[in-house]
């Protein structure tokens, strides 16, 4: 009875479970009701709990399925990436996409000695085999590491891909690699001073590697330089030849696009291999590492000599103190203080402005500068950027040296390039502005989009620029730079042979011969500067070590080789298009003394 009563009361009773027939009418007493109530409450509570849990599940499910941010995406995230991880440093390429610097996997080889011994490998055999792959280690040395009993011993750092392949092929157990990356410069010393080099932790230490370190670090996008590796090679090769022919100490050269300021080639010799910058390879040149790493183009402050007559003449013409028809008496040397200003190729007569420029007369130039005055000279040089460091992408730039107080004697010597020291990059940047119509573009090592002309500053009138083009052409046609002529390419320029200043004294035997030019002169496209440090005269040059005999012929060869690469078409130099653009009316009909 009691059992039946309990079953009947149970609300969870299955439907088919029939209660036994009641023996007596059920009396709904107070107690039974209470029990029933408790049961219901418990049931509701349990159901509510389940409902909440299910609701959570439903919400989470709908979040996953309907809304984004579900596990599906994170699942795809677990897949291996479709591209290799970004390199530690971006590649550096030239203007045509040739690799100048890249990261290469240079794994390091280590041995787990325990695993090697456990695998039953004969260490003598393994050491002998490994020694044939790892060039610079003896079998005994390798064997000692193989049987050291340690679980991690480096066998060799920075393996080449070929070595890694060979080690893998040996199939010796217990050997493994740690992945590492190293900077690699496929062209070696070709553009060492421009590209620079990196330290052991792949941090930029020189050149573009240092100057554009932020753009290189961790980026995939390669850095495009304005350099052209082919032009760079030709410039370097010809300069090396000059050094060899004239037993010179060094040389430097730059080629610049005068319309944009892009540096197409930049060489400083002697140079170094950025793959091993500290290495002194005595077989190539006796110069030490420090001297090789020194970038003459941007760090070398030189008194450039007669090359400065370009700036002096442009200044005098632009300020209107003289014109192509005027002239100065250059028959007697100028005596000022303890200085005597003389002419190297003296004509001892009155010279017109074109003649002063063509024959490179110091006396005439000095008088021209005095006519213009110190203020004009100084502000003109400042406008050309010759009194500040050059703004370029590399950090190794030198400050120009010039007198703090611009005295009359300084005015005279600066007229022909003494008493002021600037870098070759200063000179080519300023000359580019002089020949391109008077617009100064800051030099750049980064490639500009083709056809883009960067903003520039008009530093002189286009008329002065035109007159300077004529004068520079005259120097190559009849003056000191006849050997720089390259038939078909209408070269114009100016030579400079300066005596090097050492401790306040000029050394007669230590010359700095340079040529700065542009081509084609009727519509200049490229400027070129070549400089040779301490050349010595040879039999072929009749003992001369001056610019006309050393760098001028080299420039001619360089231009003839690079013009087809740079897309400069040859033109008939006697054609009206050229002669009309470059004839100086005041000289017409006059006999030009051949220098």
């Amino acid at each position: 009875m009691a059992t039946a009563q309990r079953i009947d009361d149970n609300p969870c009773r299955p439907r088919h479970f029939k209660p036994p027939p009641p023996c007596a009418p059920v009396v709904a007493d107070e107690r039974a009701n209470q029990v029933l109530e408790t049961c219901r409450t418990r049931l509701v509570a349990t159901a509510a709990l389940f409902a909440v849990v299910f609701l959570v599940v439903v919400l989470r499910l709908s979040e996953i399925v309907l809304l984004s941010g579900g596990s599906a995406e994170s699942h795809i995230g677990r897949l291996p990436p479709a591209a290799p991880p970004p390199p530690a440093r971006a590649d550096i390429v030239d203007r045509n996409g040739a690799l100048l610097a890249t990261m290469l996997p240079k794994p390091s080889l280590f041995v787990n000695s325990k695993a090697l011994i456990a695998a039953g490998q004969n260490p003598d055999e393994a050491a002998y085999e490994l020694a044939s792959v790892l060039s610079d280690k003896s079998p005994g040395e390798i064997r000692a590491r193989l049987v050291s009993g340690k679980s991690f011993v480096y066998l060799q750092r920075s393996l080449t891909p070929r070595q890694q392949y060979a080690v893998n092929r040996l199939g010796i157990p217990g050997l493994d690699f740690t992945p590492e990356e190293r900077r690699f410069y496929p062209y070696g010393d070709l553009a060492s001073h421009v590209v620079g080099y990196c330290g052991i932790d792949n941090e930029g230490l020189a050149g573009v590697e240092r100057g554009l370190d932020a753009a290189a670090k961790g980026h995939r996008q390669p850095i495009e330089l304005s350099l052209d590796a082919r032009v760079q090679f030709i410039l370097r090769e010809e300069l090396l030849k000059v050094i060899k022919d004239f037993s010179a100490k060094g040389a430097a050269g730059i080629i610049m696009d005068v319309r944009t300021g892009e540096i197409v080639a930049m060489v400083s010799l002697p140079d170094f291999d950025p793959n091993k910058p500290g290495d002194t390879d005595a077989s190539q040149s006796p110069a030490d590492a420090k001297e090789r790493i020194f970038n003459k183009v941007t760090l070398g402050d030189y008194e450039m000599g007669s090359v400065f007559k370009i700036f002096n003449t442009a200044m005098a013409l632009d300020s209107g103190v003289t014109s192509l028809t005027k002239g100065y008496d250059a028959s007697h040397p100028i005596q000022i203080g303890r200085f005597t200003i003389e002419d190297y190729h003296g004509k001892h007569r009155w010279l017109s402005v074109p003649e002063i420029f063509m024959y490179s007369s110091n006396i005439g130039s000095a008088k021209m500068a005095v006519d213009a005055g110190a203020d004009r000279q100084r502000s003109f040089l400042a406008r050309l950027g010759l009194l500040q460091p050059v703004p370029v992408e590399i950090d190794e730039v030198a400050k120009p040296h010039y007198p703090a107080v611009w005295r009359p004697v300084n005015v005279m010597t600066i007229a022909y390039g003494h008493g002021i020291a600037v870098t070759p990059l200063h000179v080519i940047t300023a000359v580019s502005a002089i020949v391109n119509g008077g617009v100064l573009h800051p030099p750049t090592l980064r490639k500009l989009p083709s056809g883009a002309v960067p903003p520039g500053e008009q530093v002189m009138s286009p008329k002065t620029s035109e007159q300077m083009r004529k004068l520079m052409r005259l120097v190559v046609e009849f003056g000191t730079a006849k050997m720089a002529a390259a038939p078909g390419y209408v070269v114009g320029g100016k030579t400079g042979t300066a005596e090097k200043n050492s401790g306040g004294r000029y050394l007669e035997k230590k010359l700095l011969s340079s040529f700065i030019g542009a081509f084609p002169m009727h519509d200049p496209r490229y400027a070129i500067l070549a400089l040779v440090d301490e050349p010595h005269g040879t039999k072929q040059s009749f003992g001369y070590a001056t610019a006309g005999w050393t760098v001028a012929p080299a420039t001619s060869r360089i231009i003839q080789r690079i013009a087809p690469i740079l897309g400069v078409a040859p033109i008939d130099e006697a054609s009206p298009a050229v002669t009309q653009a470059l004839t100086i009316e005041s000289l017409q009909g006059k006999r030009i003394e051949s220098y």
Partner: protein
Amino acid sequence: MIRLASLFWLALVAVTGFATFKVKYAVQDIEDALNKVRRHTVAEQQEIHILRAEWTSLNQPERLADLNRRLLSLAALAPKQLQRKIADIPLRPVPEPAEPLIASAPEPTAPQPAAADVHAPADTVMPVAAAAALHPAMAKIQLIATAEAAPAVIAPATSKQTSGKPEPKAQLAKAGAARQPRPLDRLISEIAESR
């Protein structure tokens, strides 16, 4: 009735379960394949990168110059080998001023009718120049072939245009049949035809 419904649901559960697992395994297979492809891609890209570095280092200008010296001995390009524009390149040389039309008159393969004889030289200039522009190799052949003779050619070519007008048709036809086409002529007409 209840039995049937239960059976239906049971079947549905079985089918759904089967389908789910089927899809799951299919997706897993695809994922495995994707993984494999991705790993391969990365490996290939890394290899391409290394090969590119090697290729560049093999292309060091210094090395190429050395190879050229030893194996090819090609000389540097001289300015006289360069013409300014494609239009400046004269056509093939015309032998005598007496029969300039004949030399440049197209062979039977060319679609030029004989009636247009007077303007024939002027007209043939265009397709040839265009063909040369389209075929750089062709242009180079032309360039080298004509560069040396360039100054000599321009004079007869211009005099021909003024003096060639009253040329009789009969002479053109006769001489045209007698002349054999030179290889360069045939090449040019072939290129013109292929367009």
